[in-house]
């Protein structure tokens, strides 16, 4: 059974359509990346799935339940990292974990969570004294303390420096290997590509592309072969890079010349993403 099923989901705020009938499904144990620019509808989608918002139309099933009707038993099974929420300023890191652990029937030990999020040394630090990255890691710890099977991560690394982001990715990967289902929203292409089994690109409330990261790049525009001839850059766009490259090199070999600065460039997810989301501005 799918962990999440969404069909024809619609939501408007004051007459503005935030979601225009999106559909997707997330299998159990899958990491699903919802990628899109700010204002595309990512948080609206996630908040409907978490039960905070009522959709205008469409069907939503999360762990087999309608989030608006689901009760405490259902919330035992989910974990939420909100996009923006503060911490209790006067509780320490460890006390946060212990407070939230108390809400669940079978919580994980706070020492275990501290190790997982790498905050052992900050266990006795109060919420108000933590840095941005440390707060975000504690957000993740709070979401994990109930040992959920489904995890919502709403822009979990926004504002991180590159080192902290990589560390967070490692943590999220380790969660995937524990078999957790994860819905990740992000506007970082690299993050979606590295962490997700499947990605959906959201633009102005619509899913404009979806598939595995490699499927998305495969469906993309042609590969590009570039080199320099007589000091001039030559660029060839082609759907058949193997054949074109073979012809080029054969010709150069016969002529006894070197193809200077020869490069074969496959489109990255970033280029695909930009080509998909650029249309929005036109």
């Amino acid at each position: 059974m799918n962990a999440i099923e969404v069909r024809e989901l619609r939501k408007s705020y004051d007459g503005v359509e935030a979601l225009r009938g999106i559909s997707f499904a997330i299998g159990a144990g899958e990491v699903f990346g919802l990628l899109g620019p700010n204002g595309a509808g990512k948080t609206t989608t996630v908040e409907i799935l978490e039960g905070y918002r009522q959709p205008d139309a469409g069907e939503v099933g999360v762990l087999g339940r309608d989030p608006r009707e689901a009760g405490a038993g259902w919330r035992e099974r989910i974990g939420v990292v909100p996009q923006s929420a503060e911490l209790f300023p006067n509780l320490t890191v460890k006390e946060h974990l212990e407070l939230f652990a108390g809400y669940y029937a079978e919580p994980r030990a706070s020492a275990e969570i501290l190790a997982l999020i790498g905050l052992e040394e900050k266990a006795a630090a109060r919420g108000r004294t933590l840095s941005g990255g440390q707060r975000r890691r504690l957000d993740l710890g709070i979401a994990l303390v109930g040992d959920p099977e489904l995890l919502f991560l709403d822009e979990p690394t926004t504002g991180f420096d590159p080192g902290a982001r990589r560390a967070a990715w490692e943590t999220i990967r380790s969660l995937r290997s524990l078999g957790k289902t994860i819905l990740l929203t992000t506007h970082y292409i690299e993050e979606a590509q590295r962490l997700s089994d499947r990605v959906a690109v959201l633009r102005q409330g619509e899913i404009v592309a979806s598939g595995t990261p490699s499927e998305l790049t495969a469906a993309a525009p042609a590969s590009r072969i570039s080199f320099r001839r007589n000091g001039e850059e030559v660029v060839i766009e082609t759907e058949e890079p193997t054949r074109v490259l073979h012809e080029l090199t054969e010709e150069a070999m016969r002529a006894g010349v070197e193809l200077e600065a020869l490069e074969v460039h496959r489109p990255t997810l970033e280029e695909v993403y930009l080509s998909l989301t650029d249309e929005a501005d036109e």
Partner: protein
Amino acid sequence: MRLLLHQFRSEQKQFWRSRELAFFTFLLPVVFFLILASAYGDEDIEGEDGYLYLLAGMIGYGAAATAFAGLALLLVNRREAGLLKRLRATPLPGTTYIVAVLGSIVFVFFLQAVALIVLARLAFDVALPDEQLSLVLALALGAAAFAALGIGLTAFIRSAEGSSAVVNAIYLPLAFISGSFFSADAFPQVLRAIAEVLPLVHFIRLVRDVMVFSEGIWEHPTDVAIIAAWGVAGAVVALRGFRWEPRER
């Protein structure tokens, strides 16, 4: 029940660690009492013993500062910080949470009332009250009513920044016209008429009658009814208007 205690303990820990809350809601009424009682406690006020008059006034001010203002500020700040919303994603039932937060602030108010009474006894030789049951009932009634009003008030506060301005603008004038700090006898008729409609003057009167004249609260049904009515009104607004999610975002 286990969950309630779990949350209550955390609330207590957070309250005493928060300098703002601990000072403005718990300590300030105690400090005011010491200052005012030293200044004019030895005179009669409205024909009553000055110390007792001020003691009842400060217990009333404490109820407004703690159960009303303190609770409203605490809840608005947590709501706007996204903390209440975050709690909604956990299995913790909303009512358990509210009862624990409310219980914690009412507990603080009781500690404060006891501290004031003990202090009055030690520093100014004020007799301990004999109608203890009535006193506890009066304090419980006042605390419950002001707490309900405090939760109801959160529905009208839209931001964390503006919250203390709104709350202070309500409870400080209320304490003044209700005679918390000195006799309101010299105040214009209009202000006194307004005070008569509001709950604090009745709460202070109830506490004073119980403590000074050793009367039972059942001898003052009008005061009890007005306080209770305000409490019910607060509870109705709270039930209809309380929000878990930030208003600003």
